[in-house]
């Protein structure tokens, strides 16, 4: 009996050991790096090392009124030390902290370095009076609240920022000021462009998949090659090709001009139409292939049976063929939509300022302002959008139906 139980357990362990290398590989190159990047969305490491005493002094503060003498004394001491360290090592600790605080409360970029400079010299009397003499701003609640928010090892500052939300001094949620509140609009724009690209791909892709599925066997490889051709060139090359075609002196405008169809060259580039055109071109195979697979596995006697029962061909399609190909349609829409949310190069090259999608801002924060926190938080936003869409799809359709019937 004992052996009978032990053997399956052993077998199970052996099976686990066999997949272990793959699991470790996935963990090492996929889960860990991406997790580490996304963790930066909530990580706070710029302010606490510079103002450790201040952060400690503010930990018990209620945020209702400006803090007392203890916090001012801690701030003075912290700034003196940080300035000394910066001068000694040539580092920019104070600058980094003020950049982070400036993101929360504009004005901090000058306030903190100036205060650090002015408190460097010894002074008599209360720290509070001395600091307030340097700048009246320290008499308000806002700068202290900003320091406390940025002081923790983690905070929701970036995650709230990408949703156009902000915490006030007491920790309550409020909307961000209008000049910072841009991300909701960009999120909706990203989702809307994804929906448009998916809808156009479906409108073109379904008839195309139908054509291939019903084509004579001799023609299928050629039609298939036509669909797969875009896979054989890189995304950037394809996008650049659209630039060549659509620009002011491009092929399309030249042709239209030569045919005297237009007086002036049309502004074809750097607008949303150009972005969608290229997106559909790139994403179309991901729509066609799953629909083709589900149409191909369809029993063609079924629509025939529907017709024999009195349904017109259009009705047979609506009641039989279409419902039976829905798993392919669902899979295709999911593939196209999720990929569309991540489009960066195409809008960046073909779109105007108002056509940029979330990934553009990820790249903007990561490479231009080196604000990894915001880049990671925007990535979390895209990830969350995809998760929500998958959950809705799973709820409405179910993933078990996704494989072609």
């Amino acid at each position, binding site marked *: 009996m004992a052996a009978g139980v032990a053997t399956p357990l052993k077998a199970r362990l052996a099976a686990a050991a066999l997949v272990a290398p793959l699991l470790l590989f996935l963990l090492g190159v996929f889960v860990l790096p991406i997790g580490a990047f996304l963790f930066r969305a909530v990580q706070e490491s710029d302010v606490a090392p510079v103002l450790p005493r201040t952060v400690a002094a503010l930990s018990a503060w209620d945020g209702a009124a400006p803090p007392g003498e203890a916090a001012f004394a801690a701030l003075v001491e912290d700034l003196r030390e940080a300035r000394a360290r910066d001068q000694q090592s040539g580092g920019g600790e104070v600058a980094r902290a003020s950049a982070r605080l400036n993101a929360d409360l504009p004005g901090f970029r000058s306030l903190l370095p100036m205060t650090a400079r002015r408190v460097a010299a010894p002074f008599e009397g209360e720290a509070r009076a001395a600091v307030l003499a340097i700048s009246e701003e320290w008499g308000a609640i806002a700068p202290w609240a900003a320091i406390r928010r940025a002081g923790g090892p983690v905070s929701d500052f970036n995650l709230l920022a990408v949703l156009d939300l902000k915490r006030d001094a007491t920790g309550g949620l409020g909307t961000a000021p209008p000049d910072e509140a841009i991300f909701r609009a960009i999120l909706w724009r990203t989702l809307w462009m994804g929906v448009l690209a998916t809808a156009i791909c479906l409108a073109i892709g379904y008839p195309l998949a139908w054509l291939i599925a019903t084509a004579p066997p001799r023609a299928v490889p050629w039609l298939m090659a036509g669909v797969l051709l875009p896979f054989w060139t890189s995304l950037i090359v394809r996008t650049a090709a659209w630039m060549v075609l659509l620009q002011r002196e491009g092929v399309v405008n030249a042709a239209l001009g030569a045919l005297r169809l237009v007086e002036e060259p049309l502004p074809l580039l750097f607008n949303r139409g150009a972005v969608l055109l290229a997106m559909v071109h790139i994403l179309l195979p991901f729509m066609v292939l799953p629909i083709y697979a589900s149409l191909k596995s369809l029993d063609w006697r*079924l629509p*025939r049976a*529907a*017709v*024999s*029962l*009195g349904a017109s*061909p259009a009705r047979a399609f609506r*009641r039989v063929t279409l419902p039976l190909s829905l798993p392919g349609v669902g899979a295709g829409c999911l593939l196209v939509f999720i990929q569309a949310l991540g489009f960066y190069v195409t809008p960046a090259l073909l779109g105007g300022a108002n056509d940029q999608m979330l990934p553009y801002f990820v790249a903007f924060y990561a490479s231009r302002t080196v604000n990894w926190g915001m880049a990671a938080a925007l990535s979390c936003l895209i990830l969350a959008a995809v998760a929500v869409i998958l959950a809705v799809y799973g709820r409405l359709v179910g993933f078990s139906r996704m494989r072609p019937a």
Partner: protein
Amino acid sequence: MTAQKQGMNRMAEPLVRFEGVRKAYGAAASGYAVQRLDLDVEKGELLTLLGPSGSGKTTTLMLLAGFEMPSEGRILLGGRDIARLPPHKRGIGVVFQSYALFPHMSVAENVAFSLEVRGVPKPERARRVERALSMVRLETFGERRPAQLSGGQQQRIALARAMVFEPPIVLLDEPLGALDKALREEMQYEIRSLHQRLGLTMMYVTHDQQEALTLSDRIAVFEGGRIRQLAPPRRLYEQPENAFVAGFVGENNRLPGTVRSHPEGEGRDRAIRVMLDGGTEVLARPVDAGAPGSRCVVAVRPERVAVAAILASEMGEDALSARLAEVIFQGDHVRLRLSLGDGAEVVAKRPVGGGMMPEPGTLVSVAWDPAHAHAFAAGG
């Protein structure tokens, strides 16, 4: 519902008439799938199209259903030419090979489909679906999905679905091909009884001659796009009109020989003399055998071959002598393999318990009633 055999009245207008119908696929040069078909289907009959694959029987069915268009000729349904009418306007019920039930609909929705597209109001729809399901004895299965049913049950649902809108004729395209033998036989009786109870007109395609003999009022045997014989099962079996039909329907011993005389006698006694290649002269009913001197084939059913454990010379002038090569027990009958002197072989069937059985190796004599021996032109 009592009209079941009225269709056999040849004077009445046929329900369906094929008139000079041809069907070519691709270029006409590549031949016709159906060549010059003239066929009447009488109201209330079950007509079977029987033939090997590629003989044109399924094409004929699809021409009537409307999924193929004839290259030439007319197809009349109730006197109206429907050859160019699209299939959904013909109102003909079709039962497809392997059922073609809609997998995303319940059984009841499948059966109700034809009523739904015809705009039948819901309460009546439900009533008629229930009646159709009870007709095939599956009234409690309405809520299930087709995938939850056995093959035989799916087949019965397909039948109910094709009948529920009361079409003038139901076409069945090898409907039992996917079922195992026992279930196939059960379904044959079921289809036959439905046909008789409801007075339905049915056109049935199969390549299984046993099935055709069991089910049909009349059988049309197809070969190479033509009908080779159209007759009730018994006539087809006992009086085949050509060697193809004789060979395709039922089992036959085929003995080559040469015609020796002109036909003599009248009616059932009409016969010719044939010299078999083994050297024995026998009498046979001439079917399409040629003039004296031409080659022919004599076909005799195994169950018509009498075997006696006495010498042929004692038995009569038409008896052949043979050696019993093998006795094979087949459950309901015994097969005797007999070798004639020239290497030809004859098979005889005997009921089990049909008297003394000679030992293999014994010399026996073989004979048959000339009325059951058919002489065909060789190579026909």
